[in-house]
């Protein structure tokens, strides 16, 4: 099922005018605070009525201002995970989880046991929300939304209120959710690290307009989109499979681009991982470097070279079918005589892939 959104709405100081499709998987709405992302999600949930627009989930029209259709929030069946969790303080965790059950259509839906298990909520069921930590609250809010058996799941910066440790605690749950629950998820974020780990589709929103949209892996490896996504944060996604845990503390990964060694990744051999390789961590060489400490040297071919306005340049590489993005200086690009088709070697230090950039799943 696909969610299709077309909206126009004017505020003081911002005109929102967006149109995009969210196929199954995680569609990330990425952009700065104030770009209009939350407004889009609120319109999908029915909490805000836009001046004009059409929102369709699968074959159900949620909103069509031209046809005067505007389903109230409780008939839209969208699970909304709010940034501030919004658990009911007078109900226990278990009662919060089951709240949406009263109104969900009869028939097969997600089972309580499975969601409790998936989100690790077993020990919390009889507690009151007031006694939960921030991370626990986020997980309960997530479970509550899923258990209302929605057509789509909306998440408005569900991790923004959490510190780094709590984020690291929740992200694996979100990945499992994406891979195990077949729901289109609309995920609002201004954190590229989160988006790179979770998104299958990326919609970039700037000042109320969609400036780029497409499959996340393609968009993140596109040098043209990188300035809008943030140059420091630019980096392609690499799919890898854990091959072996080596005795010196490294993990050997197999990728289409070649073998990679990373500091120990806590995953069993055979597990599929999603690596985000930051463009600024990739060095290029025209001959295979020797006598170098970097462990990961991948042969590749330059696909595209994009010179910036400043001293930098972004190079998109093809390494065995995978895309890698490298950020180098224009001077280096000229010195190495790089052009589309040039054979190069991408050099990556093993320690430069941070744990937060290693995610599970496809």
């Amino acid at each position, binding site marked *: 099922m696909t969610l299709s959104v077309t909206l126009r709405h004017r505020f003081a100081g911002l005109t929102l005018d967006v149109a995009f499709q969210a196929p199954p998987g995680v569609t990330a709405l990425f952009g700065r605070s104030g770009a209009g992302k939350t407004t889009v999600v609120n319109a999908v*949930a029915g909490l805000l009525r836009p001046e004009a627009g059409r929102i369709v989930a699968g074959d159900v029209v949620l909103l069509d201002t031209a046809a005067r259709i505007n389903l109230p*929030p*409780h*008939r839209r069946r969208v699970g909304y995970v709010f940034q501030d969790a919004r658990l*009911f303080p007078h109900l226990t965790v278990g009662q919060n989880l089951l*709240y949406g059950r*009263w109104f969900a259509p009869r028939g097969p839906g997600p089972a309580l046991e499975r969601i409790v298990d998936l989100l690790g909520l077993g020990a919390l069921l009889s507690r009151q929300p007031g006694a939960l930590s921030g991370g626990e609250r986020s997980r309960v809010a997530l479970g509550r939304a899923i258990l209302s058996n929605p057509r789509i799941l909306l998440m408005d910066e569900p991790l923004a209120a959490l510190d780094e440790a709590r984020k690291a605690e929740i992200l694996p749950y979100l990945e499992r959710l994406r891979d195990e629950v077949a729901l289109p998820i609309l995920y609002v974020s201004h954190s590229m690290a989160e988006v790179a780990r979770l998104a299958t589709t990326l919609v970039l929103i700037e000042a109320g307009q969609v400036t780029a949209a497409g499959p996340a892996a393609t968009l993140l490896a596109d040098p043209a989109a990188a300035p809008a996504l943030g140059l420091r944060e630019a980096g392609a996604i690499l799919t890898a499979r854990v091959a072996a845990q080596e005795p010196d503390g490294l993990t050997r990964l197999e990728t289409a681009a070649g073998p990679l060694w990373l500091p120990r990744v806590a995953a069993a051999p055979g597990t599929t991982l999603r690596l985000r390789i930051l463009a600024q961590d990739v060095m290029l060489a025209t001959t295979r470097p020797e006598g170098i400490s970097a462990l990961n040297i991948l042969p590749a071919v330059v696909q595209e070279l994009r010179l910036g306005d400043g001293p930098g340049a972004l190079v998109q590489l093809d390494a065995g079918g995978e895309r890698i993005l490298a950020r180098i200086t224009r001077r280096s690009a000229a010195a190495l005589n790089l052009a589309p088709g040039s054979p190069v070697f991408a050099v990556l230090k093993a320690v430069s892939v941070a744990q937060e950039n290693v995610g599970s799943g496809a």
Partner: protein
Amino acid sequence: MTDWLSPEEWRAVALSLRVSFWAVLASLPFGIFVAYALARWRFPGKQVLNGLVHLPLILPPVVTGYLLLLTFGRRGWAGQVLDEWFGIVFAFRWTGAALAAAVMAFPLMVRAIRLAIEAVDPRLEEAAGTLGAPRLWVLATVTLPLILPGIIAGVILAFAKAMGEFGATITFVSNIPGQTQTLPSAIYSFMQVPGGEAQAARLVAVAIAIAMAALLLSEWISRAVARRIAGP
């Protein structure tokens, strides 16, 4: 229990309890509705409604009693309609005392409940909506449980006010022993009679005891509710 109060005194106490109980119970649904309307809705005439609700607090009680007599008395338009259609008579009956007590206590009840509603985070109600709950369900399962402490406070305040109501009651339904002679009216009557001070003093003690009991009960209930909401 009755041996330390004379039958006449006991009648006054029982009547006051009955009048106050029904005054509070019958006005509570209206109180919640008006408090919700004032707290959440925007409509023309909102300030007029707000003023009307608070009027009994500011007007001399005698004036309120007189207006009730004009409206709900035997010849009042509302009194006639209610009598003919439903057989409900307020004039010089205990029901009239209950009506007077309800009207006088209404502003206090509405105020307490309104404050509680204004303290409820509307985003919680929004969240309930996104989980599929229709409006009335949200009201019953989220709003009402969250404002329960405010409702209890409003009920106790209104009950205390109803127990003490004197001016409007005596103006509207007079001071008939066994019919409309409530606790304050009885105290007033005993004080008009030479040698009635002892009786008056006993009733004053009863009034103090009831007020204290109501206060302690409300404290206890609202603490229990707050504990349940905050969690262990």
